[in-house]
């Protein structure tokens, strides 16, 4: 019998089926991921769903074993309810409802974007950050204000991770493209001019993608410049855009903490840039540890705990998935009062 209550969190918004066990004090007991990797092209929702359906029980069992728990030790089920690929979200919700009813324990739904921020607040020991959340599916600059995580800036078209992945595919770099682009970029310092599009605090990456793709297709490619030069220029342009809007948001909100999270947070060059502007504004800079920056079940479990402690469980009707939910639509009851 475990002394603290335990939540099991299920992440199922895109390629990752993640299960994490977290106790009610915020201690992460285990974290196991199964990641769908496409043979070619992007994520096909039906194929991702199939993979998750085939693997969900194994991942849950692995997470329980790792935490030295039995399924009977679980006191709360949390699942990613929004936003994401509909067919994939459904699997998470389905498994969560099933477990909740079998075990007769409460379940809560969690917004995936908010979970990325909450796990950062927990693990990086910061309270009220300005967050830059960068991944394959999202690019959001947000901060807590008037009861919600307000969005100050976001992409107007494709997310930064999507830009990197799509460019990698065009350049025939195997999945995942981000780390490989980062390594290629290190080998160059030759900047090729690319479109830099910042609109207020919002960003647009689609023109940048097209321009980078054209560099690959040009007859000058591999004569006057090479792939490393394009990778370098792509990163420098896109990350400078991200850094500029983040800095504007820091100046605007006057937050004293900056949190970098999401899969692209692993990029050292981006970390360096965001760190630099945080220093300039005397803000504490934290990167969510890699394991927790990408999609994972622990962030869902922890956010579920926060929600459950402040507002209680969901009834069955409330567990319906919401693939398009914006994070600034959701009120954050746990931040308006103190929780122990």
């Amino acid at each position: 019998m475990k002394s603290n209550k335990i939540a099991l969190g299920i992440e199922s918004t895109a390629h990752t089926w993640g299960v994490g066990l977290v106790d009610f004090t915020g201690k992460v007991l285990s974290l196991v991921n199964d990641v769908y990797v496409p043979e070619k092209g992007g994520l096909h929702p039906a194929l991702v769903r199939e993979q998750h359906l085939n693997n969900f029980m194994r991942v849950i069992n692995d997470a329980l074993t790792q935490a030295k728990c039995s399924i009977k030790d679980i006191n709360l089920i949390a699942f990613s309810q929004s936003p994401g690929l509909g067919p994939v979200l459904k699997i998470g919700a389905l498994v969560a409802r099933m477990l909740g009813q079998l075990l007769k324990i409460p379940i809560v739904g969690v917004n995936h974007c908010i979970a990325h921020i909450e796990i950062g607040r927990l693990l990086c020991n910061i309270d009220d950050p300005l967050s830059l959340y960068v991944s394959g599916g999202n690019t959001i600059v947000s901060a807590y204000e008037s009861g919600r995580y307000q969005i100050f800036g976001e992409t107007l078209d494709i997310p930064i991770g999507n830009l990197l992945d799509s460019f990698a595919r065009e350049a025939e770099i195997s999945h995942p493209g981000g780390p490989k682009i980062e390594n290629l970029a290190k080998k160059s310092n030759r900047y090729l001019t690319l479109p830099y599009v910042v609109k207020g605090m919002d960003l647009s990456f689609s023109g940048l993608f097209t321009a980078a793709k054209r560099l690959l297709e040009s007859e000058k490619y591999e004569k006057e410049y090479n792939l490393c030069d394009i990778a370098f220029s792509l990163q420098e342009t896109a990350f400078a855009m991200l850094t500029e809007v983040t800095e504007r948001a820091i100046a605007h909100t006057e937050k004293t903490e900056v949190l970098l999270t999401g899969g692209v947070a692993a990029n050292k060059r981006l970390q360096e840039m965001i760190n630099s502007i945080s220093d300039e504004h005397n803000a504490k800079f934290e990167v969510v540890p890699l394991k927790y920056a990408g999609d994972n079940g622990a962030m869902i479990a922890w956010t579920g705990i926060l929600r459950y402690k402040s507002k209680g469980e969901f009834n069955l009707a409330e567990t319906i998935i919401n693939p398009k939910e914006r994070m600034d639509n959701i009120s954050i009851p746990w931040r308006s009062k103190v929780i122990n």
Partner: protein
Amino acid sequence: MTRKITKEKLLHKGAEASLFYGHWFGKEVIFKHRIIKDYRIEQLDRTIRTIRTLNEARALIKVKEYRINTPQVYEIDTESSTIIMKYISGSKLKNLIKTLSISKKKDIFTKLGRIIAILHINGHIHGDITTSNIIITSSEDIFLIDFGLHDYSDSIEDKSVDIHLLKRVLISSHGDDFKLCFNAFLEGYESEFRDRGNNAYNDIIKNISIIETRGRYVKKENRL
């Protein structure tokens, strides 16, 4: 010999530029200095700073043609990316908004709507209409500042995006006043177009909601 140009004190350190107060041949001025950003590579940094300095100075001067209040530009230095411009004494709308009566808020935002309409009708996009970039003087004149993201465009899309940005700022920073202020803004904006017999505002305003529905994670039922 007395120095004719003196930089006296730092007034504001923004994300992009530092604003210094000082004197220029006896006149009270602001030095807007676009700071070198070490985080980006030199080539990109220089390009961005130079383009924005020139853009801003040109726009500040150009829009005066339509009697829009902007600080007078005295000098430009692209080497240090600095604009020396007239010092406007007043308060940022951002700081003032909470202290204003309902009728004053309505009045200011209606006027602002007319000002932005004049810009748009003449093919100017401000590019960063936030409440920090609007100065209200003691005589209640409205000054537009920070034209660093200014652009020339006649497209409906660009004009809608311009207004959409203001809308976003009002929601995120002045949530309680959003409806009142934004409706007043639209009223002024429309009136200016109508007074000039220009019907384009219909499409511009309609396009704002299209932009919103195009955003990420918009519910299906709200999509067009």
